[in-house]
């Protein structure tokens, strides 16, 4: 994660003015897509991801004046996003009559056809991707969260630990189990 000028500016603003509610517009503009990407990869449903991203920023807006700047805005927002996603799956477990969202492989696959790959390679990659997405559906929430934060958001282990509210050792354990599950899934195909 390379901090750019805008994120540095935001962190500075927050350090200086804890009640800087007007600056929240900048936070939304800057971090919306990033939060949305994590939430979408977690829930694998565009409509639900949009609602949950909005929930996340809504919670952040309410807590904005209490934000002390102990961590970066990004870490703080991702922490809220992780909790929002966790609550979503917790509620969903109670709604047992609703089936889990399934990623349409063609939806993800159509992106790859734009790349300069031979048809054979493209087919193999699509199959592998389908398996990784399928593994995401069966992984427990903590393992999936650790996997996505590490390999999609490219966060450091210490950052993931902060976002998930666990130790770095626990992050490694969740990551190991997630990677092992993904590899099993890939090996089975």
């Amino acid at each position, binding site marked *: 994660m390379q901090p750019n000028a805008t994120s540095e500016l935001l962190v500075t603003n927050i350090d200086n003015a804890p009640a800087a509610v007007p600056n929240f517009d900048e936070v939304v503009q800057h971090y*919306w897509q990033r939060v949305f*990407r994590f939430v979408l990869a977690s829930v694998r449903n565009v409509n639900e*991801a949009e609602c949950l991203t909005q929930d996340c*920023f809504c919670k952040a807006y*309410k807590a904005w004046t209490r934000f002390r700047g102990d961590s970066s805005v990004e870490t703080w927002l991702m922490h809220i996003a992780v909790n929002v996603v966790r609550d979503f799956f917790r509620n969903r477990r109670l709604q047992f009559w609703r089936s889990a969202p399934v990623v349409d492989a063609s939806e993800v696959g159509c*992106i790859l056809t734009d790349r300069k790959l031979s048809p054979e390679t493209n087919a193999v990659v699509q199959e592998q991707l389908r398996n990784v997405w399928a593994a995401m559906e069966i992984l427990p929430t903590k393992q999936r969260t650790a996997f996505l934060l590490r390999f999609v958001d490219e966060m450091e282990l210490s950052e993931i630990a902060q976002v998930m509210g666990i130790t770095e050792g626990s992050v*490694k354990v969740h*990551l190991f189990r997630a990677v092992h599950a993904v590899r099993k899934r890939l090996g089975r195909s």
Partner: protein
Amino acid sequence: MNTHLTEEQISRYIAGYATAELDRHIVGCAQCSAKLGSLENIIGQFRGSAGDWAGRECRLPDMATLSGVFRRSRTLSLRWVAAAATLAAIAAAFPAFRKPVEPPVAVLEQSRSDEQLLERVNAHLSQSAPASLQPLMEMLPLRSDLKNEGEIR
């Protein structure tokens, strides 16, 4: 390390359990290096697909609309607070509306007989002379009569 890395060791390596020994082995072993590279490539493709999917579907919200949503949610939470306060007030007032509980009949009778007994004891104690001298006391004129006689004299 003479043998190749196991599946578990490769997973551990990717998960962040890298050691100097594992690093050395991967650098020196083409087969393990290829295995690791293949896994990293798949993860890279996955990252790309997740990023592209989000990029394609992400619509930045209109700030005016979003501010409205934020304000509404704040009003909504205030409403919840008001509703909770009302419920708490009703719950607190509820015992005041309840009818007082009547004591059972046996308890009432017991207390009645206790009162009668106390009255009898009081009457007995308030007597100026013992019971055996009571007939003599009745023969004496009342103190008020004696007072009246004195006045006439």
